[in-house]
């Protein structure tokens, strides 16, 4: 089958979306399909470019570009899903979040509001005409239902190099790998360090815009013996830090999917996340595969102390997490089967 995959692209910047897109095309090829990937530049920072790209994609007929027959079209991202195909499937990574749950009504101009309405109307219209809809996670499906009144089937995929995650003897630290962004809430964990009652420490891996701010905060709060920023780590180092951790903290608000949760589960480690985490809550169950707490420093500290005091509980939760991952049957082969079913 000749499958065309559409998505956005930011040249020379590799992120989770690229892994997702490349993982899908690789999996399709492995199943014997011919795959071509149509990626369009998406200029997040220039609102009028968003409008232009929406207009371009809307009704773009991809059945036979230049006479080349395409058997199936899989759209992943806004606004490429506006294209037309007789055998069109949606696997929604996320919508344009700034027009939805991340829309800042307080800061928005009238023009911003008008654009938001245009985007929402576009999504409702073009997504509605795709007969087979899947979403990256139940959270993404839920948002689609909430804002656009459309249903989609959640379809999970494995994180990069899933088979290489492993478990080793736990040391007394919580691990939190993520880009340093406001949305990921590294700050919450740093603030929690002041409320700890056990000797547990926090190791944060990653880099990003908020890192300098976090470093200042650590100094201000005097918790440098409790919180360490590791900076960028290699994939192997990341897996080793997972393997030896007591548990994993994953703090974002309303995350779409979150590879961190899956990676923690693959490493047989309990996940501490917050009640407003979004996607991760599909996988992290309180007292089953981790601890779900209020997004306050006190609650996070209490959860960390609980794992440190009761390593057996930490182990049991971690192992249940791994079992849950296995039970979910998350595999690329499955993804391809469902998408092309």
């Amino acid at each position, binding site marked *: 089958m000749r499958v065309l995959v559409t998505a956005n692209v930011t040249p020379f910047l590799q992120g989770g979306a690229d892994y997702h897109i490349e993982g899908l095309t690789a999996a399709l090829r492995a199943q014997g399909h011919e795959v071509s990937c149509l990626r369009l530049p998406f200029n997040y920072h220039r609102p009028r470019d968003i409008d232009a790209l929406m207009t371009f994609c809307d009704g773009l007929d991809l059945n036979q570009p230049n006479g080349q027959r395409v058997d199936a079209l899989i759209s992943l991202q806004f606004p490429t899903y506006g294209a037309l195909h007789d055998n069109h499937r949606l696997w929604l990574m996320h919508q344009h979040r700034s027009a939805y749950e991340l829309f800042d009504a307080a800061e928005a101009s009238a023009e911003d509001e008008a654009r938001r309405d245009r985007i929402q109307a576009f999504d409702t219209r073009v997504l509605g005409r795709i007969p087979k809809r899947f979403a990256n996670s139940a959270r993404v499906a839920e948002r689609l239902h909430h804002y656009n009144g459309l249903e989609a089937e959640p379809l999970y995929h494995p994180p990069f190099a899933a088979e290489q995650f492993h478990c080793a003897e736990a040391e007394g630290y919580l691990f939190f790998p993520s880009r340093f962004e406001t949305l990921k809430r590294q700050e919450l964990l740093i603030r929690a360090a002041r409320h700890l*009652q056990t*000797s547990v420490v926090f190791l944060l891996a990653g880099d990003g815009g908020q890192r300098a701010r976090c470093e200042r905060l650590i100094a201000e709060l005097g918790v440098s013996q409790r919180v360490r920023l590791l900076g960028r780590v290699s994939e*192997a180092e*990341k897996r080793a830090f997972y393997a030896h951790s007591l548990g994993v903290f994953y703090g974002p608000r309303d995350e779409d999917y979150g590879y961190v949760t899956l990676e923690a589960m693959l490493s047989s480690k309990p996940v501490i996340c917050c009640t407003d985490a979004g996607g991760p809550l599909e996988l992290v169950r309180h007292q089953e595969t981790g601890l779900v707490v209020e997004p306050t420093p006190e609650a996070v500290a209490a959860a960390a102390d609980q794992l440190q005091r009761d390593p057996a509980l930490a182990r049991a939760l971690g192992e249940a997490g791994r079992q849950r991952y296995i039970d979910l049957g998350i595999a690329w082969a499955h993804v391809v089967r469902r998408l092309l079913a």
Partner: protein
Amino acid sequence: MSQPDVASHQPLDVDALIARIKAEAGTDQDALPMPALVGDALNSAGQADQRPASASALGWLLSALSDEAFLEGAYRTLLGRAPDAVGADAYRRSLARGGSRLLILYILRYSAEGRAWAGEAAASRSHLNLLRQPMLLSRLRRYLKRGGTLSGLLGRMKAVASGPVAGGLSPSPSPSLLSPNSTQRPQLKPAPWLWLYRLAPVKRPLGPFLRFAERRYLRKHPELYAQQAVWQSNQRIDQQHIRVSQVDERVSRLKAEAVETQTGLEHEVQRRERLSKDLDFFRSDLIYHRQQAQELLTALRSAQGQRTQSSYHDQAPAHQGPTARESLVTEPLSNEAIATAAASLQAVLDATVDDRLDAYYVAFEEEFRGSPEQIRATQEGYVADLLGAAVVTPETPVLDLGCGRGEWLGLLAESGLHAQGVDSNRVMVERCRSYGLDARCEDALSALQALPDASLGAVSAFHLIEHLPFALLHALLEQAHRVLCPGGLLILETPNPENVLVGSHTFYHDPTHRNPMTPTATRFLVRYLGFADPEIRRLHPYPESAKVPGQDALTERVNGHLCGPQDFALIARKPKRPVAAQRVPSSTGRATATDATQPAA
């Protein structure tokens, strides 16, 4: 910190910890660059190989949440396979009655299968050596120090394992736990030595003692002997069952593999079809570009020829000035520039030679050129000519243009005549070389151009001239004349279009033929270029049997035109002295540079 830390007494050295973990990761192989199908290993093939990778693997197993997970893990870790139905069922029942996980680990580990598996790759599975379980040992020591008992420990582990119920002792393990198939074990009253088994996992050397103790105990209780024997034979039967189910499992695994291989093969076939399509596309592209390049090269060469002539004109007749010259040469290019362009084009052509077409031509020759024996018979005549002329020496060898399969070169070698061959078909050249002949892959014109004046005893070209555009043929023979020593022979052989069937039909068998050369035109051409005594030999008539019977004029004419000689040869020589008078002056009065440079004698 108002409350003492329960789990870890000494504060963590964070920097040392970070350094240690990073060092560990350094030895870990990093992920493959291609994210293809990552993660599928876990969820395919019955969640294969979840062998825990670390030294605490067994500790991890002991605290597995469910008995199911524990057994799955224990089998995979200690036997390297999934639990079989019979064994797993027995152990499941024993665990359900409060049996010890540690004991099951011990039994599996030191079973024949367990030993074999651990032994196969002892180095890579050192984590299976229970004696080297620092975690288990330290946990036990800590526990015993605090005044705990072994059975208490087992109970506690079990309690931890079976859920969030903290503390509490499990029922003490029953003796039936000793058997993988416990239901058939006679209900014995707990033997006094049984507790030793619980030590066994941490003290392997106790094994022989345990066996000794068991034997003694049974000797003291003869009534149990019989039961024991029955139990043992049952156990043997069970093991047979286990083996049968193992074979079954292997068979189904092989079946699954076969299906996978089949699918893989189908994909491979499809991929090859796609590639072969691509290849055809590139080939036709290549052929087109080669043709273009060849035409360009020919055009360049004839332009070069014109240039040479015009420069000769420039020098010779005094009345012709620069204006006349400019009218002849429209391109303001120097001879060197043209030569360079031609050379680079030739290089491109050489680099893009399509070996597949070459191979086709070899096969074509085999089919249509005639057998080597036939060809040899004809060519023996030319050997006689060469020997008669006595012009071939080691210093002035024969150069065969388009040497093909090398029959002629071979014959010359046998006759003791020095010869070299050139051909643009790599496959042909390689074949010649494999016979030990001196042949090289080169364009005929370039080969001649590279030679000094009067350096060859003979130039031969069998079935070559009909392949060449006229401008090239002209240049080629001009060069041949230049490089032949005085008295040297030119031997050409080509299809004879006097035979109507040749001219209208068989000539076109060969896709690389351009146009037939008639004997008349060929003779005129060589004479024009300064060769002397051109002799035409008509060769290879149809056999008599193919001719129309009869002697009359009409029959003769029909036979002559339809069944006459299919090829002809032209043998000419370079005069010992330059013969300017033989040149038929053309209307424009052109002459060749070759003649102009010929030393006057």
